[in-house]
Each structure stands twice: as C-alpha cells, then as structure tokens.
C-alpha cells in the first residue's frame, strides 16, 4: 500500500468509539432483542384476532337474512367488560375487554364478545409467560416488557358502530396491531371492505393510487415518513389489500387504516386515510 495511504490509515484507526457510545449501543441492543421477543408473542396474539375476522366474514349470508327484518329501535353500545392491569417498575400490562350490547343479531353479538374475551385472555397469558421467561433469563428487574389490549369506539351513530380493537407492545418502540369492526346497526351486519364497493369493481387501484399520492404529499408538506415502494425500498407501500383495514367515520366516509410500522416510520403512529368522495364515486355501492 502507498505510504501516504498507510499514514492516513493510521490516523483513521486512531478514531475510536468512546465508552459512552459503547454503553449506549449495548443498552439499545438489549432493548431491541427483548422487544423482538415481545413482538413475536404479540404477533401470535394478533394472529388469533386475524383468524377470527376471517371466520366472521363467512357468516354474511345470515347477516344478509337479518337485513329483511324491520328495525324499530336499536340501542347498540359498547361497554368495558373487564380490566386487567399490572403496573410494576419494569413490566406493565393493560388489557381492557370490550363488550357489545344491543345487536339484533344475537349470534353475531355473542361471537364478537366471546372473541374479545378470548383475545384478551391470550394477550394476558402471553404477557405472563413472557415476564416469567424474561425474569428467568435476565433476572428480576433486568428487563422491560409491556403489552396492552384495548378498544376505541370510532363511530357510533344511527347507522354505524365502528370499533377499533388493538393489541400493542410497549417495549422499545411500541408497535400496534389494529382490528376494526364496522357494524351496520340497521341490518346487524358486519361490513366487509369488499362489500362497500360495486360487485366486480376494481377498488384496489384507485384507492391505492390515492393513498400513495397522499403519502407523497405528507412526506413533502408535513415532514411525513411514509415508505413508498421503489427500487431502494422494495418493502414500501404499493397497494392496499383486498380486505384492507378500514372503518366508516361519523361523516359516512371510508377511512383506510394501516398498522404502526406497516407503511411508515414509527413517528407516524398508525396512519389513516379518509377517502374523498371523488376517489370512491365510481366504485362505491
């Protein structure tokens, strides 16, 4: 090697990471590794929620039949059935189980409520198991763990009850997995994304185009951190899925939803896109 280059190399090698950085990186690695484990468990719990939604969609024929029954008055409401809380210095959990009341379709109501209960129980079981394992591995007090299961009523008017039930992890950077339930109060039917649109209509393309454009706009105008698919970023957003997560807001508009980290950096939270009428005009039922 050239002598001059050797000299420069020596100088390069005299640069060293200091102890504070070494410590900071060490702590970050520990945190990230335990977060990785926690996420695996949360994902397993979330998988139960996902499997459940598929089951519900199949029950549509029955829901359809219900729509022929005249509705006099429906007092549909959501209550908190149960609350499980753990608040230790290094591990926390908050599991809140919702309960729907007043659906005309009692079978659907029981099914939803049972699943809320089961999901909450599986989150609690996974959390307790995880605390036990982490304690065994790292010793008492030497780890962090946190999970939650909760709900939010997005819309509650004469027509629609939209419920967002979500599982979240609060270790390191928190992640959140949402499941939305949109109930047509008049028919007692659980609304699927596909059922919003005309039969056979390609709703994926126009909505995906709108979401991508809106991501670009937010990146440009609002310092957004959305990931769009490109050569450098093959994992970025390209299109919505056929059964995209959504809810109907109180203006009757469709709101397309994504989980945290799904299409953007964590700072964006769980992104939502309210679809303007002009996007849906040609495809909506």
């Amino acid at each position, binding site marked *: 090697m*050239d002598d*001059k280059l050797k000299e420069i*190399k020596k100088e*390069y090698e005299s*640069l060293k*990471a200091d102890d504070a950085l070494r410590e*900071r990186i060490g702590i*970050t*690695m520990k945190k*990230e590794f335990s977060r990785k484990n926690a996420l695996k468990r949360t994902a397993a719990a979330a998988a139960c929620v996902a499997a459940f939604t598929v089951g519900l969609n199949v029950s549509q024929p029955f829901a359809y039949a219900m729509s022929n029954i005249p509705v006099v008055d429906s007092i549909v409401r959501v209550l908190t059935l149960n609350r499980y809380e753990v608040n230790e210095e290094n591990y926390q959990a908050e599991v809140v189980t919702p309960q729907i009341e007043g659906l005309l379709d009692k079978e659907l109501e029981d099914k939803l409520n049972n699943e809320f209960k089961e999901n909450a129980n599986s989150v609690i079981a996974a959390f307790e198991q995880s605390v036990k394992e982490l304690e065994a591995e790292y010793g008492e007090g030497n780890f962090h763990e946190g999970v939650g299961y909760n709900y939010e009523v997005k819309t509650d008017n004469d027509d629609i009850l939209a419920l967002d039930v979500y599982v979240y992890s609060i270790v390191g950077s928190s992640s959140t997995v949402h499941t939305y339930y949109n109930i047509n109060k008049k028919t007692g039917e659980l609304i699927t994304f596909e059922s919003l649109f005309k039969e056979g209509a390609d709703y994926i393309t126009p909505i995906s185009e709108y979401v991508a454009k809106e991501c670009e706009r937010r990146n440009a105008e609002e310092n957004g951190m959305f990931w769009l698919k490109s050569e450098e970023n093959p994992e970025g957003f390209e299109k919505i899925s056929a059964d995209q997560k959504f809810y109907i807001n109180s203006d009757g508009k469709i709101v397309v939803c994504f989980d945290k980290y799904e299409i953007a950096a964590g700072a964006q939270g769980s992104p939502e896109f309210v679809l303007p009428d002009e996007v849906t005009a040609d495809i909506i039922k």
Partner: protein
Amino acid sequence: MKKTDLFENFINENLDNVYRFAYSYTKNKEDAEDILHESVVKAIRSLNSLKNADNIKPWFYKIVANTALNSIKAKSKIVYLEYEDMEPLQISEDDYSKLNFMELIEKLEPKYKSIIILRYFENMTIAQVAEVLNINENTVKTRLYKALKALRMNAEEVY
C-alpha cells in the same frame, strides 16, 4: 450461534471500525454516534435479511452507509444557507499529497471516499465494497482507480 448473538458479538468487536466508517460520512462525533445508533436498531429489526453469517460485515456497513446518506440528505436541506459561511478548505486543489485523514474525508467526493476507506482501511474485497455501496464491481474498480489518481497515489495496486 443465534443471529442476535452473532450480531451483538460483531458490534462489540467492531464498534471502533463502524464508528470510523460512520464518521467518514458525518465528519463529527455526535452525528456519527446517532447514525450508528440508528443503524444498530435498523439492523436488529431487519436481522432476517442477513442470510449468511459470513456476510455480516458488508451487510451492516451497507445499513450504516444508507443511514448516513439519508441523514445527510435530510440535513443538507437545513444547512444549505450556511454554506457560504464555511471556511475555505486549507489545501489547494493540486496539493493532495499532503492530505491527512480529516482532509481526505472533507475533500474527496463521497463516492470516492467510501471506496478508499472500505477497500484499504477496512480491508474489504472489491465484491464486498460493491455490495456495501450498492454499485457493481467494475464501477468500484473504476472509481478506486480515479480516487487514487486524484490523490496522486500509486494506482497499480487497485485490483
């Protein structure tokens, strides 16, 4: 060995090196540390993309290089106005032979600088350099040759 253990060992053993590499982009300690920190988080979250344990060095350097470039891009929007206030470089165009490391990273275009560092200071193969910088091997060779020429260094040992 578990991937997480492999990664932790790699970082513990190579922290000085990856810090230097980040520094060559940021040219200051604080930013280099932040880049490194962010890169470690990114790396752990995408450990699945590390297919071959032997490949961990170029794999991680690639993450550092991309993180550094993104951060520089983001920051350049803000510091652009201060450009005119910057002190003129101490060395003149034709005096590369008296260059030291700080001046090398200050003076040389990023696309040349990183190649010199990876090839000669981090002892990577041409193929590994190509992987880190996401360019093909011939481009690496051409740029290396040009960089050494610009530095008035013996270019015969390029390959």
